[in-house]
């Protein structure tokens, strides 16, 4: 089971690096993140300086001033980048008919889907690992609270996993990578912004919409809190996305 999944995952992970996609995505990500980090950092320093100069009391903490905006922004960037990472996973295999190799190999559909999902997750993990440089810089130069940094990483990983499961699902629906990517982005945005509708919805509906919103479950993570409700929500979301992918591909075989 694990070996089969790993065979698919490692092949797909490697093939990210045989096309320019991975390099473009990673480079774009690092440039934007780097720019945001140093912008936040200098803004934070300036503010701190002003506070000291005019004796206005304590400025925002590193957590509030740098860590939270940093990971908040990262989540938005992942919303944009995930479609590029997942769009080819099944769509390309269907288009090139290479899916026949996977479907006639002695693997279960679950192993194939998990393999693809994990390959994309690995790429995200690599990108997240590259951003460890920022907390390390903060630790060298200052004294940041480590709790929120840790939970922000966990939260980001879980939230991005939800985008990935949406991406895997939409990639299984079509042969067209562009369509798969566009739908992934639209759906990700929908589950992100769904909380906005809570203001105009009635009390029951606003609770439901708030619960379904991907971003509302991230708040606790950004404050250093690890709540099982949020973890459970993200894991269920991913499970549902992959389960639907299973259904789609199973019925694809029937046609």
């Amino acid at each position: 089971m694990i070996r089969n999944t790993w065979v698919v995952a490692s092949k797909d992970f490697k093939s990210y690096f045989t096309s320019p996609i991975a390099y473009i995505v990673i480079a774009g990500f690092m440039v934007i993140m780097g720019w945001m980090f140093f912008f936040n950092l200098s803004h934070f320093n300036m503010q701190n300086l002003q506070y000291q100069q005019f004796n206005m009391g304590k400025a925002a903490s590193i957590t509030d001033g740098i860590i939270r905006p940093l990971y908040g922004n990262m989540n938005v960037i992942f919303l944009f980048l995930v479609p590029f990472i997942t769009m080819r996973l099944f769509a390309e295999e269907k288009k090139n008919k290479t899916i026949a190799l996977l479907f006639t190999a002695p693997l279960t559909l679950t192993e194939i889907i998990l393999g693809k999902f994990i390959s994309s997750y690995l790429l995200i993990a690599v990108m997240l690992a590259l951003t460890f440089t920022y907390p390390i810089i903060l630790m060298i130069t200052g004294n940041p609270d480590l709790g929120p940094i840790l939970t922000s990483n966990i939260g980001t990983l879980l939230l991005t996993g939800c985008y990935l499961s949406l991406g895997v699902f939409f990639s299984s629906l079509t042969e067209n990578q562009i369509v798969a990517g566009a739908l992934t982005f639209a759906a990700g945005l929908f589950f992100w912004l769904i909380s906005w509708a809570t203001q105009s919805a009635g009390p029951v509906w606003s609770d439901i919409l708030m619960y379904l919103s991907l971003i509302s479950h991230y708040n606790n993570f950004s404050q250093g809190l690890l709540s099982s409700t949020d973890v459970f929500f993200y894991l269920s979301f991913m499970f549902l996305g992959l389960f639907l992918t299973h259904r789609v591909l199973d019925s694809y075989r029937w046609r």
Partner: protein
Amino acid sequence: MIQVSHLTKYYGARSAVEDLTFEVAKGEIVGFLGPNGAGKSTTMKILSGFMPASEGNVTVAGFDVTKNPIELKRSVGYLPETPPVYGEMTVEDYVEFAAKLKQVPKTQLKKAVTYAVDRTGLGPVRKRLIGNLSKGYQQRVGLAQALVHNPPVMILDEPTVGLDPKQIIEIRELIKGLAGDHTVILSSHILPEVTATCHRIVVINRGKIAAVDTIEQLTSRLRKGLIYSMTVKTPLIQGIEALKQVSGVQSITQAGPKLVIEMRPGGAEIRDQLVEIAVAQKLGVLEFSAERVSLEEIFLQLTTEERPA
């Protein structure tokens, strides 16, 4: 090794294959012959576990396609119509990936890859990107993928399509070499392809089996007897009557100076006799020749609706 009974497949409301029943014995090479759209690929997709059947039972290497799909797939090497190759991988990496997918044990991985690459003549291009190879070579890579786990059953959908004549001969030799150890079922819509490699053929047309037999049996079963044609100077009635008396002659039709002599199927060789009588009757023989019913004609006979066999 392969048992198919009452196999039916619907695409929506239309059936692509209907009530197919046939068997393939261990070590046999069987050709699946039929015109475009006959349902060859559909059947092979079902046999390989790629696609479920709508009705009927399929057993390959002792495994039921719906009850034991994983075991069945482990025993089958399948080459689809379009070789399922990744253009961005090298030949060697791809064959190794296929071997891992098919659960070749780690210790035998290298050996299996070398075996498949050598057997399909891919040695010289093993380090090249598949995307840069010619269609024929990509076809071989597809074949290497089907071969790499040394499966007892090989299902090859039009294995020589797109190859040049030299490559066709090589691949045919390869497939023939597989017989004995492997059970092979291959499809084609051209007859010489099948006659060159197969022991037995299943002729399929419009989703139904038209015939299942050895090539020799099929030829003799369908032969309407030999046909001779004789052109004479003076087609005298009594001379023609005398020819009709020869045993083995079924009928003679006359069109001007040309006599078409149709023989009973499976008769003895009597050409000498026919010519002797014609000479004795002073018909003045100008020309005498035999017309063979070719396999191509049989194939057409079997698969053309206007001329039921």
